């Protein structure tokens, strides 16, 4: 610790702090333009100049100068004000001042400083910038005439996002920020640069001219898309979500978001939302009132009794899950499930049998300090982008060694010290076993207090590095290095994503990952963790609250089969579009046809809803109150920003009404009361609703106590065909909901199939060609995309789009053998 004096105040701060940090701690405000808490110090703008007694004769930039003991700092004096004013005058020489039409007006740092320092005239004259605006993409507009060259966009895109869109080009007065070859911005559209820019040089296009910042009501809530659980702040005007505001005070995402969270909000305002219940009459879905609809639903459910099947998506709040379970109990059914291919089995079964827990063992911020990271199935950029940014920072700032075991190369594979262990789909398991084998062979394994060692050794007999290398194509060296790095690391992180399109080997992969966690000493060690990250916003909540088949109950797949056979007589499908998103469309079709009475509860008239007997209009995350639990076990509060369109209700309200009409007498006074009711017997028992603050509340603490039971798993199998297709999540979309949002659709609005360069060259394909993809007895027409991520013989198609019919082909396997023709 270091003690210094700032404006007469004694401050004690950490040795690593800068003068700016110290002043901030002391409650003294120093103006800044190029400083940002989450970025490394840079010192570009010189607005933060201060006087330091020990360095007399010149002014010192406070944001880059580390504190030293006994420093005496003055942050405000006549001279300092004069110099700051001059700096602002310089910045305004070329700046095109058009605040009235600049969307930043009202929250522009330059505008605020100009006002504060009373820069009413400029002693310097110069030519105003006259650069064309960059509008080549539909989401982000860049106007370099307003840029103050603070470099924040350059730095955030590199340091945090790891994409590297921008760079300074030219020199002197000509200096500007440009993208590659100055062609305009075409990137991942995460919007981090938008949120960092202190002026109106980078702005969100969907929000263009929509409102002034002071007109917006800010509502802190949680992103409704993926299990990363980023906190978002809605900017609401006239009961409409107009934008997502930057906020780094809530959650643990530091204000970072991905394209889905940043630009994917518009579906909540969609005019296609359902506004009234629909009931099928004479074969047609017609509008109906709630009373009629609820009466029909409860009558149908009562008739079905224990033969009712309930399938829900994982985007309901915890409180809603609880009520849904009550609905199931009241009707008397145990057929309840929350994900099609039972992809969550990695957590519920894989982790359970090894570590004895059913959740990630540590929290996200710890990954930033990891020395070695093993990412399985994806480099996390596509599935959980903001967690991916944490991985990127660990590698960039902490020089963590990153190893990625996946069937395609990803963005982070290009980082220094990163290693991609690319295998054929399905063989990730073999690679993990190979790593475990190296750990054992080289005596690196932690075996104290570990059970099941002998069985594992026996089972790994066929996974000598050479054998694994021969089967998977991953080199022996890569396996050994990965194992050694993980074993040597003081803090390590093992990451595995799961979700609807990743159902194959769910349990096995998690088990193999847990084995490695145990053998490397990761399991149970403070600072290390195994992370199993669900696809949907409340996947973890669904597991914690056991939205799973009950005693003798059927899981989703079994339920669909039983419905097709007429045993499950009625289906209640909430917040999910299984016809599009579940593996094996035929099975879902048969189930919908076989069930006598189908109720769908959703925001839109989805493909599944079109087949229903009753459709109930539900609400989006932006309309809800309650809690989500993210992939690191963090419970976070949602706050409603807008009201639902028409007579649509939140799922919470629908379940309550349904419970009443089913004869349940308990009525809750509010969300908090439901939370209090659901806690008993769940991990949330110790958490009070009011304790869930801005940073949420992590159940079980930062570290879960784990058991160490090694469980042998066999290898996976891959299909032997010239081409095999894998499905998965594309960065720009999440589930099927994002296909109703204009932001993600502006980048990718239609299904496609991605080819690696070699395959594209061999097939003579270019971007945009239409190809026939034939496999599993059906044929799909898809547009081709060419990229350099996929190894030869592997194709990738995202699963989000209804029009693709991808799940006619994909039935839950690791990959599907396909034939390609033009």
């Amino acid at each position, binding site marked *: 610790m270091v003690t210094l004096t700032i404006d007469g105040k004694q401050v004690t701060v950490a040795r690593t702090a800068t003068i700016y940090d110290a002043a901030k701690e002391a409650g003294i405000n120093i103006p800044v333009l190029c400083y940002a808490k989450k970025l490394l110090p840079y010192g570009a703008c010189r607005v933060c100049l201060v006087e330091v007694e020990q360095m007399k004769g010149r002014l010192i930039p406070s944001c880059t100068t580390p504190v030293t003991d006994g420093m005496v700092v003055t942050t405000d004096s006549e001279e300092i004000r004069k110099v700051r004013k001059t700096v602002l005058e310089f910045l305004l020489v070329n700046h095109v001042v058009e*605040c*009235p*039409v600049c969307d930043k*007006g009202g929250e522009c740092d330059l505008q605020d400083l100009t006002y504060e320092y009373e820069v009413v005239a400029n002693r310097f004259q110069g030519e105003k910038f006259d650069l064309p605006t960059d509008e080549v993409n539909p989401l982000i507009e860049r106007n370099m005439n307003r840029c103050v060259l603070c470099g924040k966009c350059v730095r955030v895109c590199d340091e945090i996002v790891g994409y590297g869109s921008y760079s300074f080009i030219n020199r002197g007065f000509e200096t500007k920020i440009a993208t590659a070859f100055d062609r305009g911005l075409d990137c991942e559209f995460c919007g981090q640069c938008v949120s960092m820019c202190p002026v109106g040089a980078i702005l969100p296009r969907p929000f*263009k*001219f*929509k*409102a*002034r910042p*002071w*007109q917006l009501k800010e509502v802190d809530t949680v992103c409704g898309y993926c299990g990363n659980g980023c906190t978002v702040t809605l900017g609401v005007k006239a009961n409409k979500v107009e934008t997502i505001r930057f906020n780094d005070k809530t959650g643990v995402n530091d204000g970072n978001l991905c394209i889905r969270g940043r630009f994917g909000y518009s579906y909540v305002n969609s005019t296609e939302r359902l506004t009234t219940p629909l009931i099928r009459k004479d074969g047609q879905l017609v509008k109906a009132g709630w009373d009629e609809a609820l009466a029909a639903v409860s009558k149908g459910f009562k008739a079905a009794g224990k033969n009712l099947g309930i399938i829900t998506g994982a985007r309901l709040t915890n409180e809603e899950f609880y009520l849904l379970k009550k609905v199931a109990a009241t009707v008397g059914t145990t057929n309840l499930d929350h994900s099609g291919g039972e992809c969550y089995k990695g957590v519920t079964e894989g982790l359970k049998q090894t570590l004895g827990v059913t959740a990630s063992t540590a929290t996200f911020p710890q990954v930033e300090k990891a020395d070695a990271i093993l990412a399985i199935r994806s480099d996390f950029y596509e599935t959980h982008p903001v967690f991916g940014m944490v991985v990127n920072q660990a590698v960039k700032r902490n020089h963590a060694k990153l190893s990625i075991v996946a069937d395609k190369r990803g963005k982070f594979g290009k980082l220094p010290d990163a290693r991609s262990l690319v295998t054929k789909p399905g063989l990730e398991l073999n690679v993990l076993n190979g790593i475990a084998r190296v750990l054992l062979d080289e005596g690196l394994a932690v075996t104290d207090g570990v059970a099941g060692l002998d069985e594992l050794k026996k089972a790994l007999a066929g996974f000598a590095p050479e054998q694994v290398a021969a089967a998977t194509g991953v080199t022996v060296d890569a396996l050994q290095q990965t194992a050694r790095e993980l074993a040597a690391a003081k803090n390590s992180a093992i990451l595995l994503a799961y979700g609807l399109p990743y159902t194959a080997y769910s349990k096995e992969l998690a088990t193999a990952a847990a084995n490695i966690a145990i053998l490397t000493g990761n399991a149970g060690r403070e600072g290390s963790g195994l992370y199993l990250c669900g696809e949907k916003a409340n996947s973890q909540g669904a597991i914690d609250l056991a939205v799973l088949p009950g005693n003798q109950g059927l899981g989703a797949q079994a339920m669909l089969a039983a419905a097709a056979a007429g045993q499950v007589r009625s289906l209640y499908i909430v917040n999910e579009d299984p016809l599009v998103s579940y593996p094996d469309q035929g099975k879902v079709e048969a189930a919908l046809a076989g069930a006598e009475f189908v109720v769908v509860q959703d925001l839109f008239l989805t493909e599944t809803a079109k087949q229903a007997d009753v459709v109930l209009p539900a609400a989006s995350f932006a309309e809800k109150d309650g809690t989500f639990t993210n992939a690191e076990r963090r419970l976070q509060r949602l706050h409603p920003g807008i009201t639902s369109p028409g007579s649509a209700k939140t799922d919470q309200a629908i379940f309550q009404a349904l419970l009443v009409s089913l004869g349940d007498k308990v009525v809750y006074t509010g969300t908090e009361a439901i939370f209090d009711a659901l806690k008993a017997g769940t991990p949330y028992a110790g958490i009070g609703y009011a304790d869930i603050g801005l940073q949420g509340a992590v159940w079980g603490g930062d570290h879960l106590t784990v058991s160490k039971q090694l469980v042998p798993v066999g290898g996976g199998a891959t299909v032997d065909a010239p081409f095999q297709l894998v499905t998965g999540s594309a960065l720009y979309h999440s589930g099927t909901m994002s296909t109703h949002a204009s932001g993600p659709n502006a980048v990718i609005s239609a299904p496609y199939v991605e080819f690696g360069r070699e395959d594209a060259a061999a097939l003579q394909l270019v971007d945009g060609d239409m190809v026939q993809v034939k496999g599993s007895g059906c044929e799909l027409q898809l547009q081709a995309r060419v990229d350099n991520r996929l190894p030869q013989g592997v194709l990738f198609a995202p699963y989000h789009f209804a029009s693709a019919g991808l799940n006619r082909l994909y039935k839950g396997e690791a990959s599907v053998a396909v034939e390609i023709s033009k």
Partner: protein
Amino acid sequence: MFKEFIQGLSITFKHLLPGHSTTVQYPDERLTPSPRFRGLHRLVPTQDREKCVACYLCPTVCPAKCITVESAENEKGEKYPQVYEIDLLRCIFCGYCVEACPVEALEMTAEYELANFHREDFKFNKKRLLK
């Protein structure tokens, strides 16, 4: 004392003499207000559009909250007021809106004959304000 009464009343009587009345025979006779009079607002036009750039400063400053602006982008990519409306029933004619406008797109005219029959007629939309 009587003298003082006469003195005082003489002033009163002087005002009763012809030519001393301030009452105007409206509507036969009309006054010309002073140049700084604050009457009906006017949106200043330019060649092909209104000068207003929809910066939202006038609705923000308006103490009576009677200005509605909705901005949008025109074909040229410029910001313009798709909707501009002043509810004169609520306006207090303080002139803050004129003062706040950064581009001098709004002014107040000498027009003070604003009586009307229907509430709706007191809503002055862009078209009426541009006249």
